[in-house]
């Protein structure tokens, strides 16, 4: 525990002697104003437009789900052997997006990467919304929605239990833990900032709501002490989840006997891919947010560049995994294994495969160039391409099953209108939640950002001046 305590003090309080993490030399007050303004100002028109679009998409999601419940999963393009279809593709995609948030908030915190403070809060919010989007898919895919509670190990009069050896049940535990811990972590981090908003609230309703949510925070010494310890413990709990959740997701595929699915590198490969796509999503959102709300000093180029470097690393890991899969498929000497991979690259879904390779392997390699990884336009396009690629990665894994052992049964999986509607709808839900978050909660962890400003250092020259003035 002492180890953790030390890390906490260091991570939060270490003087910024290396470099300025926040540009423009703002004062504490300017940070508070810049971040709170987004919440307090009048709702901009652009927000209404965006919210209108995304909430309409959410409506589409609700309609598609309602129709699905009415008709059954036959409205989707599912077939045998592609029995999971887009539902699992979207599940894995969304849960993967969430991983960057946890990596940023927990792992980078433990690694004392202080530049994370700028993006921490909204990356975590993104995690929560992405997990919500992800959880929709297994729930609506069960077919008989009225017995969805069967996926939980609930003692019942029939003595029916889920199969504890099934990774799908492990998913229930993994997602449940992940969502709970992420939510708690996010909320604990929010408390001091909620108190700031409470203090600044201009009307009674805001005062009450932020007041209740901030749990009586007044910023006392003892409160900070407990707060930092709680934050640290939650970071330590969340860290293994970054690995475990997506490892278990990968096992949904890898424990099977299917060529192309059953391969031992899946757990670390999925984790790397998840972080990769998650960072791309954080990047997309960060670039939009910094442009829309004038937070260029907080989401500054140093932060963005480092995120690009993480994408370069994880993208290369994903490339390594693709190479290993391909090589071992050949090396195994197993003709079905070989077929599965040749079929991916040159079969009917070759177009999807090459989208995946270009977006996931080739695009991040451009970040070797300093010029490109500090170019806003380029990184914005790249981040979107990476997410397209990562969605297609899961698509390729799932739908290339359409050519299995029995050539006479070979088919072509095509998503239907309702498949696409739910995919679009899930983006709608994600962006609606995210826009609401931007509107009602501080999207940057003000208290943490202040902690990495030079003024937070007790040896800061400006402080000394103020101190000596106060003494004299």
């Amino acid at each position, binding site marked *: 525990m*002492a180890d953790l305590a030390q890390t906490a003090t260091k991570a939060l309080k270490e003087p910024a002697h290396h470099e300025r993490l926040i540009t423009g030399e703002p004062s504490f007050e300017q940070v508070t104003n810049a971040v709170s303004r987004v919440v307090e100002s009048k709702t901009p028109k652009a927000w209404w437009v965006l919210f209108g679009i995304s909430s309409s998409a959410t409506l589409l999601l609700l309609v598609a789900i309602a129709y699905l419940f009415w008709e059954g999963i036959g409205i989707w393009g599912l077939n045998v052997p592609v029995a999971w279809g887009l539902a699992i593709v979207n599940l894995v995609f969304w849960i993967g997006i969430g991983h960057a948030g946890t990596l940023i908030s927990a792992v980078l915190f433990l690694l004392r990467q202080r530049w994370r403070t700028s993006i921490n809060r909204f990356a975590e919010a993104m995690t929560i919304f992405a997990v919500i989007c992800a959880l929709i898919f297994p729930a609506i895919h069960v077919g008989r929605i009225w017995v969805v509670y069967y996926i939980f190990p609930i003692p019942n009069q029939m003595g029916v239990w889920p199969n504890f050896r099934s990774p799908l049940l492990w998913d229930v535990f993994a997602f449940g833990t992940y969502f709970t811990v992420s939510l708690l972590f996010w909320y604990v981090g929010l408390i001091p900032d909620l108190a700031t908003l409470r203090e600044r609230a201009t009307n009674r309703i805001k005062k009450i709501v932020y007041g209740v949510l901030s749990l009586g925070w007044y910023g006392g010494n003892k409160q900070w002490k407990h707060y930092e310890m709680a934050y640290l413990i939650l970071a330590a709990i969340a860290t293994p989840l970054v690995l475990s959740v997506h490892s278990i997701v990968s096992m949904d595929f890898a*424990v099977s006997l299917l060529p192309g699915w059953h391969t031992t590198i899946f757990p670390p490969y999925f984790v790397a891919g998840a972080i990769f796509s998650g960072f791309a999503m954080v990047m997309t959102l960060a670039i939009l947010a910094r442009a829309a709300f004038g937070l260029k000093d907080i989401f500054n180029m140093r932060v963005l560049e480092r995120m690009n470097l993480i994408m370069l690393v994880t993208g290369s890991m994903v490339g390594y*995994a693709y190479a290993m899969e391909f090589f071992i498929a050949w090396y195994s000497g197993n003709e079905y294994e070989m077929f599965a991979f040749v079929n991916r690259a040159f079969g009917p879904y070759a177009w999807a495969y090459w989208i995946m390779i270009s977006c996931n392997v080739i695009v991040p390699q451009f970040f*070797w160039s300093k010029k490109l990884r500090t170019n806003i336009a380029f990184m914005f396009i790249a981040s979107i391409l990476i997410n397209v690629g990562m969605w297609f990665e899961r698509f390729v894994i799932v739908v290339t099953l359409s050519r299995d052992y029995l050539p006479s049964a070979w088919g072509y999986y095509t998503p239907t209108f309702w498949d696409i509607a739910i995919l679009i709808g899930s983006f709608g839900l994600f962006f609606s939640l995210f826009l609401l978050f931007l509107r009602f909660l501080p999207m940057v962890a003000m208290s943490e950002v202040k902690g990495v400003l030079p003024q937070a250092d007790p040896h800061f020259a400006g402080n000394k001046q103020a101190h000596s003035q106060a003494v004299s």
Partner: protein
Amino acid sequence: MQSLKISLKVKEQILSKENMKLDRNTYKFTDKGNLGNIALVVGIVGLAASAVGYIQDSHQFYFSYLVAFFFWISVALGALFFNLLHHLTRASWSTAIRKLTESMMSVIPFMFVLIIPVLLGMHELYHWTHEDVVATDLVLQQKAPYLNIPFFIIRVVFYFAVWSILTFALIKNSARQDIKHEDSILARMRKYSAPGMMLFAFTLTFASFDWLMSLEPHWFSTIFGVYIFCGVFISMLAFTIIMVRYQNGQGAFDGIVTVEHRHTLGKLLFAFTIMWAYMGFSQYLLIWYANLPEETFWYLQRWEGSWRTLSIILPIAHFGLPFVALLPQAAKRNGNWLLMMAFYMLLMRYMDLYWIAMPTHSPEGINYSWMDISTMAGIGGIFIWLFWRKYTSGAAVPVNDPGLKVSMEYVN
């Protein structure tokens, strides 16, 4: 009794404070201590004994030699990775141990000479080299374009070429920096490290496929390279901790490399112990679950006879115990405890390699041979001698590196 006395005397000599001296202005060794000489003697005796063993039982010799070889090259390759990482991430804390880790990787080109016995023993080590076996084995015929003697040798040469070029490039620039610092030198090292890291990932993976996985040519696992990589890094970290602690014990490193650096090395050791377990568990679980005979046989072999005991001990001893023993902060900051854990992790690493390679040699059960020890001592002695010779030949730290001061004052 006699031997105990000698070993006590050796221990005394190694630990005596007056053994090694470092000039505090130039950071050069005025007294290099006798570690190098001891290592050389151990190495020569070990190799000579192993040569006798070769005449006695060449099959045993080659397997023992392969394990020992891989064990020691792991330290050097881990050091190469550490240096590449140091430059790529512009790490500041590790500058003070950069010369130490550079010296460790400087052994790589010499390891090319030490791999020759493995090449000579290919016929005994790898049964895919037997033409009569391949002739009746469809799977091996399929793999023949990869698993054949000329290509194997070409790959060995290629791996060593890549590793040696990277090593030379980094060490040459490091030497240039010792004369006069220029920012461009560090920039160049970073530039080499970027493609170097990519090349390292693939060469290490394929080297582990070639040298270890192909001992069972039917078996395959996509995670194997990553699993071996975790072990490689563990070896290097443990060895570094030992060498740092050794010099601290001599008083040579006081105020240069401190408990803070050891603490960080300990944290990395802890992290990669978990990483190793994660990779090993992923591999095991997926193979166990799918239960495909073409994969499970590898684990079933390790469930035969006394191998079963080792298979049960390995995860507990290589992961469970060190997880608990390295978790508390005090454990990583206590010099003797961390030293003991570093030795222990090297032993575990050896056990892991033994468990991977040896069932091919003696499928019926563990058949521990004195040659396992003599080859370890032989290659290890030469390794440490070469490493120490390089290390003590110049300054113990990169004296002109602008990051040195930050590193020496590093606090966790």
